[in-house]
């Protein structure tokens, strides 16, 4: 047996002192370049506005570590890529820890305190683990190469839907080249590492402290045997090793030096982005302080440092690009490209020593790097992008902040202007008189309490579409009957209710939102009630998540939850089951925004329908296209509408009877799409409430055709 101390790897074995010095000079230079790069990046972020994301530091940090360790976000909707990334990631982390351990002993503990530990069993296990790490990383990299070269994934196509072929920033081939450079450099570093290991083994094959333990480096040893078998002797191996050593070393150091300047920086930016993730991003948009002069984002420095960091975190994985309904129908918007555009803009403008003039910082416009107005207006704030981004890029607040500036400067469709003015004037988006808001109640066989005049248990916030739109009124009346049948003590705000403001806010008309929210809050505060119910997921979202910022703390539930409880408590009873084959469309504001995926499905099960899911369901639900104020802006003719795209998806289900929605805007959008996409005689579109009404036992029998007449 050999002395444990002797079983190790002698660093710089066979090197002249001058070579060692040279290596250190190169090493320190690399570190200096790395640090300078980090400084430039941090300086860039610091040129943004303050952000409150530093709170709860430890919890956030822990959360980030968990996300990274489990690779939870990277595995979603692309398991293979997730696994490959995990292999590269963990391989890299282990190799990094390995190198750091050696540095710790050789450069710090040994020279300063004479402590050594990198020998014997520790060394052997160390060798084995790093060999495995190297193999894992290489395997991961090979898969990534295969994926890029042969899978032809649309999400990895960097051409932009918002630019024309021939525009200077259309195809983004530089990104492709960078991807490949990264893959190749990394894999070469790893492969040369193994070759070095092998050549060292052959070179020192006479030394039993090396050769006898060679199988602790299984990959190196196998290659060594191969090379030896091919005729490489110790001397040749020694020469080979010297040349390769420098090649490997310099490449690795160059890689380190370039981290802050290349996509590799996502190691840091993505982790930081995950750590500063705002779980409420998009669901609760940022408020604007009363005394703040300007609103929204005009220049790149109007973004907060966190948003600038978000831009750098994007790994171009394309998941948001793939999920975006605007992009899917050929609108000039891809959330990925908004992020990348702004990133390129920030890199050009903010990495310089001196900040350029204000005019050169304007992110709006038609120039290279600027974001088009049409791009911003194409967004439906459906949150599909934010929801799927593996590195917590928060697109929606970024887009809305930019829209706020567009609205402030009046850069919008004239028809949207009209709607906004009419919302201000009438308190609703339908251009209807305030007085008409509760007119639908007149057709009910009973009166609903006026919650402004008497206390109620449940306040029903109806919302614009449910109040004014004739097709939706059918549903609204049915819901009233269900509540009445269940004996719920409920009331309305009648004429005093205003548009809740959710979509106005997402348009970017913050002033009008403040007006609507504060009016509704003060009206609600003057009433006595215990909780709010609404059939409108949009109102639900803003009252639940955003009114608190304006002092309105209310308990609110979407009707699906309320009905579910009423059934469970036996207050509503089912008299017959339906044997329809149905599918369910998750409304963005109920599903992705507020995680209300289950209640509607449980209700569907209760009434006996056979639910066949569409491919894109729950968190991956495909927006009907109405969000973010887009319901007020006509979609361009000739392009497919998101709602038609969705209806076609449902159309692929065999023998579908009903396309179920649970949102007034969905009902409007899909009733339309069913006709324009030619599915009129294939299936019907119904609100879940309508199906439930068919099944529930009412004390007073309704005339049969009551609820279906207007449908």
């Amino acid at each position, binding site marked *: 047996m050999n002395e444990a101390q002797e079983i190790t790897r002698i660093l710089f074995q066979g090197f002249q002192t001058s070579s060692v010095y040279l290596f250190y000079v190169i090493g320190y230079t690399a570190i200096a370049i790395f640090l300078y790069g980090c400084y430039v990046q941090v300086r860039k972020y610091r040129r943004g506005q303050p952000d409150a994301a530093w709170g709860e530091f430890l919890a956030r940090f822990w959360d980030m570590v968990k996300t990274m360790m489990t690779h939870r976000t990277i595995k979603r909707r692309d398991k293979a890529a997730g696994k490959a990334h995990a292999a590269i990631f963990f391989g890299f982390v282990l190799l990094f820890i390995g190198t750091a351990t050696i540095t710790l002993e050789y450069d710090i503990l040994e020279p300063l305190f004479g402590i050594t530990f990198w020998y014997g069993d520790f060394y052997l296990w160390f060798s084995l683990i790093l060999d495995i790490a190297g193999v894992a990383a290489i395997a991961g990299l090979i898969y990534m190469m295969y994926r890029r070269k042969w899978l032809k994934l649309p999400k990895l196509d960097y051409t932009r839907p918002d630019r024309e072929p021939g525009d200077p920033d259309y195809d983004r081939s530089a990104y492709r080249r960078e991807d490949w450079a990264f893959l190749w450099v990394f894999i070469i570093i790893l492969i040369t590492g193994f070759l070095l290991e092998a050549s060292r083994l052959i070179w020192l094959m006479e030394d039993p402290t090396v050769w006898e333990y060679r199988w602790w480096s299984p990959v190196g040893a196998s290659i060594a045997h191969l090379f030896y078998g091919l005729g490489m002797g110790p001397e040749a191996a020694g020469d080979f090793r010297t040349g390769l050593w420098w090649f490997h070393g310099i490449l690795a150091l160059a890689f380190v030096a370039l981290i802050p300047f290349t996509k590799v920086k996502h190691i840091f930016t993505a982790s930081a982005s995950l750590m500063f993730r705002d779980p409420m991003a998009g669901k609760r948009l940022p408020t*604007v302080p009363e005394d703040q*002069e300007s*609103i929204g984002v005009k220049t790149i420095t109007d973004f907060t440092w966190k948003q600038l960091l978000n831009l750098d975190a994007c790994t171009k994985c394309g998941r948001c690009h793939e999920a975006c309904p605007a992009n899917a129908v050929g609108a000039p918007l891809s959330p990925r490209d908004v992020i990348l555009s702004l990133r390129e803009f920030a890199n050009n403008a903010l990495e310089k020593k001196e900040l350029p003039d204000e005019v050169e910082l304007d992110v709006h416009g038609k120039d290279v790097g600027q974001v088009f107005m049409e791009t911003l207006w194409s967004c439906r704030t459906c949150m599909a992008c934010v929801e799927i981004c593996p590195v917590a890029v928060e697109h929606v607040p970024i887009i809305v902040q930019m829209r706020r500036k567009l*609205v*402030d*400067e*009046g850069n*919008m469709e*004239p028809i949207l*202007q009209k709607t*906004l*003015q009419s919302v*201000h*004037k*009438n308190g609703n988006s339908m251009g*209807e*008189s*305030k*007085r*008409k808001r509760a007119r639908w109640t007149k057709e009910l066989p009973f009166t609903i309490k006026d919650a402004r005049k008497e206390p109620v248990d449940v306040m029903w916030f109806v919302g614009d579409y449910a109040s004014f739109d004739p097709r939706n009124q059918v549903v609204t009346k049915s819901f009233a009957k269900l509540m009445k049948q269940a004996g719920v003590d409920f009331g309305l705000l009648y004429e005093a209710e205003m548009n809740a403001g959710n979509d106005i806010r997402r348009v970017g*008309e*913050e*002033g*009008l939102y*403040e*007006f609507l929210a504060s009016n509704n809050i003060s009206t609600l505060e003057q009433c006595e009630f215990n909780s709010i119910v609404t059939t409108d997921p949009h109102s639900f979202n803003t009252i639940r998540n955003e009114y608190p910022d304006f002092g309105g703390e209310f308990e609110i539930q979407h009707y699906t939850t309320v009905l579910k409880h009423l059934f469970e408590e036996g207050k509503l009873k089912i008299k017959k089951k339906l044997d329809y084959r149905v599918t369910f469309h998750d409304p963005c504001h109920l599903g992705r925004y507020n995680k209300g995926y289950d209640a509607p499905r449980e209700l569907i099960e209760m009434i006996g329908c056979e639910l066949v899911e569409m491919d894109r369901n729950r968190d991956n639900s495909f927006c009907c296209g109405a969000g973010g104020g887009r319901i007020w802006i006509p979609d361009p003719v000739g392009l497919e509408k998101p709602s038609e795209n969705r209806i076609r998806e449902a159309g692929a289900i065999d023998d579908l009877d009903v396309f179920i929605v649970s949102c007034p805007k969905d009902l409007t959008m899909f009733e339309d799409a069913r006709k324009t996409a030619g599915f009129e005689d294939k299936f019907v579109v119904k609100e879940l409430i309508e199906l439930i009404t068919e099944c529930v036992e009412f004390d007073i029998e309704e005339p049969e055709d009551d609820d279906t007449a207007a449908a």
Partner: protein
Amino acid sequence: MKILVAVKEVASLDDDFEIRDDQLDVDEDFLLYELNEWDDFSLEEAMSIKERSDTEVEVVVVSVGPDRVEESLRKCLAKGADRAIRVWSDEMEGSDSITVGRILAAVAEQEKPDMIFAGVQSSDNADASTGIAIASYLNWPHTAVVAGLDYTPGANKATASRELEGGLGQEVEISCPAVLTIQLGINTPRYASLRGIKQAAAKPIDEVSLSDLGLSAEEVGADAAFSRVRRMYIPEKGMATMIEGTTAEQAAKLAQIIKEFKGEA
């Protein structure tokens, strides 16, 4: 260099409304007030001249009316007007469009603008005469229904293109100062964001009364008006009916109606 823009806060009707008991107007309760649509365009025209100009241009908006009018003036300020003037004294109640023209002319005499813009008409009364009345009281040249304008601030001439009946256009050269009444569609009015309107609340609105203008009570108000409303009412619905059916059926039906009308059937 100054442009005076005369604006009006018009009443728009709620869906169902009632006529006042005295049958002279619609019950206040059913009225919603907003800035006259034409005035959005004339303000925009002034604003775009201001923004394109190398020399300093001041845009002043003026309106005759009670307190509530401030809201519309705020909107103009939010859109970028430099100053707003609200003219009111109780004696002005009941003024018709010509009398309002006289009041505005008095304001113009004090402000000494280089150009006055007004909307072609107001959407509530549709008299289309206020702008012209201003010109006549000032004895200034005027041109109406301007759908395109070429004017450099400070120049002593402007070229206006006008819309005439039958799709005709007319190009008019007019010496300045002048009064122009601006037609819809001449430009794209900007949007006044609500935040902008709120912030405009900080800008002062000059309040001017009868005496400030050197006018007497006899010159304004209902008694000075050249016209007065005698009755407001909802005309009976027309008698038109749509004749349905095939061409032959329609012809037969029509023939029968004519016969009935002639008393033959």
